[in-house]
């Protein structure tokens, strides 16, 4: 994207007023999507974005400017704006020797989505529509979306880092509406991976369509969710959202550093049941939150956050790590060149345990079984978090019985983590997620085995 001599001159301009650190982040992103709704292919969209963000750090202050002009003149103008914003006083004649970062690509992309004829993408949507509607006359509306993106990044900084990465993602999602005497219900399913069009060699859109349609149809007969605290069993896969909210955000070093996390100052302490070993892993090949380097040029890492219930470490970006005199953990991410990086999760998952899913269920006298979760939200300072259940059932006498309508669950992170009393041996990753923080969205993955939270979760239903 940029030649080394240009990079060096731009970094020199960024550091010209004196700087502890200066960085160029250049990005080129192509995206395409196709939407089926109301029985027909409604729209195809293509997007292209290209630009660079320049960051200059002086002491505790960061100056940042971005531009869509990648010419040397455009970059130098942005570098000067960033330098002036950082309010450095002094002069710098930094000339940096750049070392290429050798980071392992987490996977190879076999079929570049841009090389696939649009007609093939459209075909998938039409097939999904047909399959969902074939599940029953109760299905009254279907929408489906195909999307891919190809992001190339370059990061160079005055520490001598020069890294590049190419990130390809492909996604398919389907939503169905079922109508009956009780009104309308919805079902959704999606698959997204950091791979190319070969995604569809592994996943059948027909399966996704059937799952989404069945979810909607099942809920037509659902009863209102109960109200109050109950034992909750979460099925393998999407339950990772709970850990993302219950402790993931609270383990981000920027929030911890500002005293805005219930997990601040608790390294080495027992923060969860001994059954809990939680990992954040940007190297996980093909997963939605993987990459070779993060958006600060740091190679992706596998970081154990909680080991057997003991808090091992937080997640770090370059800025926070620099202040603590330690290394970044490869969690510095940003939505685009128009944003400053901050500490973000990648793929966050709970390691599998020893119980079989059948044992966990049959040991549960009464409670709620959640097989598909929606999004969630957390207040990291209090630890209170919510997450939505989009497919759930009652558990009665160790058996899954009646379907429940949608709702949120609420709990407090530390309390819920210590109440996990069973972890299954059936690990699965969940669907693709977009994590929002301070107005920036980044792709994240998560996964869990079947697990049980004995207490501490309140079901937000209406039934007494």
């Amino acid at each position: 994207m940029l030649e080394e001599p240009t990079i060096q001159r731009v970094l020199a301009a960024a550091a010209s007023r004196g700087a502890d650190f200066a960085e160029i982040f250049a990005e080129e992103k192509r995206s395409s999507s196709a939407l089926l709704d109301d029985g027909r292919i409604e729209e195809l969209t293509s997007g292209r974005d290209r630009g660079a963000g320049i960051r200059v750090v002086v002491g505790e202050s960061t100056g940042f400017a971005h531009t869509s002009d990648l010419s040397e003149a455009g970059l130098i103008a942005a570098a000067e704006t960033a330098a002036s914003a950082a309010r450095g006083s002094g002069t710098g004649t930094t000339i940096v020797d750049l070392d290429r970062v050798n980071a392992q690509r987490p996977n190879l992309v076999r079929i570049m989505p841009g090389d696939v004829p649009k007609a093939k993408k459209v075909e998938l949507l039409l097939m999904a529509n047909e399959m969902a509607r074939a599940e029953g006359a109760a299905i009254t509306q279907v929408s489906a979306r195909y999307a891919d993106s190809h992001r190339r990044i370059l990061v160079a900084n005055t520490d001598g880092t020069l890294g590049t990465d190419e990130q390809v993602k492909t996604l398919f999602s389907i939503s169905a509406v079922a109508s009956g005497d009780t009104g309308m219900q919805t079902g959704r399913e999606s698959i997204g991976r950091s791979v190319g069009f070969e995604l569809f060699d592994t996943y059948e859109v027909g399966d996704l369509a059937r799952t989404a349609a069945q979810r909607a149809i099942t809920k037509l007969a659902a009863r209102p969710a109960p109200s109050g605290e109950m034992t909750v069993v979460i099925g393998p896969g999407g339950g990772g959202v709970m850990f993302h909210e219950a402790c993931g955000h609270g383990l981000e070093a920027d929030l911890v550093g500002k005293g805005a996390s219930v997990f601040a100052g608790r390294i080495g302490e027992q923060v969860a049941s001994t059954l809990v070993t939680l990992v954040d892993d940007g190297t996980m090949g093909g997963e939605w939150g993987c990459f070779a380097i993060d958006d600060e040029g740091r190679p992706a890492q596998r970081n154990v956050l909680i080991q057997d219930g003991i808090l091992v470490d937080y997640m770090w970006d370059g800025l926070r790590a620099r202040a603590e005199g330690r290394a970044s953990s490869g969690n510095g991410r940003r939505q685009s060149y128009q944003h400053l990086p901050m500490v973000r999760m990648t793929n966050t998952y709970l390691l599998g345990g020893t119980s079989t899913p059948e044992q966990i269920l049959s040991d549960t006298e009464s409670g709620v079984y959640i097989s598909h979760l929606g999004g969630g939200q957390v207040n990291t300072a209090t630890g209170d978090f919510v997450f939505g259940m989009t497919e759930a059932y009652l558990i009665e006498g160790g058996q899954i019985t009646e379907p429940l309508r949608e709702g949120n669950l609420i709990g407090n992170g530390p309390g819920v983590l210590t109440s996990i009393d069973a972890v299954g041996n059936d690990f699965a990753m969940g669907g693709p997620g977009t994590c929002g923080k301070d107005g920036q969205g980044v792709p994240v993955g998560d996964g869990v085995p079947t697990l049980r939270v004995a207490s501490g979760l309140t079901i937000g239903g209406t039934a007494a």
Partner: protein
Amino acid sequence: MTATVSKQQSGHSEDLLALAASVLDQAAGEEQVEVLLSRATSTTVKVYEGQVESLTSADSSGAGIRVIRDGRLGFAHCGSLDPTVLVETLREARDNLEFAEPDEWNGLAVPDGVEVVAQNGWSDSVVAFPVERKIALALELEQRVLAADSRITGIRSTAYGDAWGESVILSTAGIQAVDRGASCSISTQPLARVGEETQTGFGYDSGRVPELLDLDHATAEAVDRATRLLGAVKPPSARMTILLEPRLAISLMGIVSGMLSGESVLKGRSPFGERVGEQIASPLLSLTDDPTRSESIGAEEVDGEGLACRSNLLISDGVLQGFLQDSYSGRRSGLASTGSAVRGTRSLPGVGAQLLVMQPGTRSFEQLVSSIDLGLYVNSFSGMHSGVNSISGDFSVGADGLMIRKGSLAEPVRELTLASTLQRLLLDIAEVGGDFEWLRGGDGACSLVIQDVSLSGA
């Protein structure tokens, strides 16, 4: 037909209009083309512990191009105003169109003769405000919040932000619209701590004159929110009355307005689809979407397709009056656009409310509190995106707040959920407050008292 150009604001964006015209010049034969171009400048200053934590200075631009031919629709967008890139983007939109299925109702908005209500969205004082003073304002707010209450032990972030920009919409159907705006804001997120317990607050103000940003208001709001929940406990489950202040009442109205989109109705996704003329809410509720209200910072002249914004009565005395439409949904419903297309450069227009206004009742907030024997005054909702389904109507959100006992605010509570259905919440409105205010986000709202909501707790 008159094209919708604002008189007050014409004469400013000639270069953008000329650039858009150069794209339209390439429209071929029967092709309909619409170009949306925008550019903006923004600054964000974040301060922390008396220092500038970050200062971001940004120029951004973008374009969205919609092409329709033989009933087929194609769209492409780019983050640039480079003429070469715009040509490629037009070509992409054309190529995309080949794969979409024809729809007889596809088409661009056509000028409808509705006059633009001029708005004063621009602000020279935002543009002229020096960086040093932006920093000073943020530092001052941080200092005031820290000094306001000994229980405030830190602030996650305090910020000043501003942005100004312009956009133009030009189409082969005769639309020519220019929109310019500027605004500024301050915000702060303090942490209140007593013993091992931490609570968070949020304070905010926005406007078009930096010197008039209300630091006292932002400070008081932030400190009150952060401290009033200290000592909160999880309450027992019960059915009870809830009291929503205007800010939260409007978030509920925002979800309801989404269910009144003509597009949702056409596609069978609105539970209110067949119910125009029927009582869908308490007779106490009247709701209008009216972006022409100049008193609001959210007022707009034109919608996302360049048609004049107008006042649309949605619910009157609880009776559903009609739906919001953009040009597509209006045409397909046999109606007309209500000027309710919303979009950015990166997306096609969709139907949405732009500036919701609730009709006030009579009693003050204090009188509402004193009329409630047992209830919850809600401080915040969480999980609005994960527990509210506007198709089924299921409503379940996390919340915290203060109990109301025998007409007075009582102990703080947290870690609870509130549940009902959207349909029932509307009918269960027991009172609309007389405490109308223009919210800092733009909408005009009043407090709402809603009865018989399920509170789940311990």
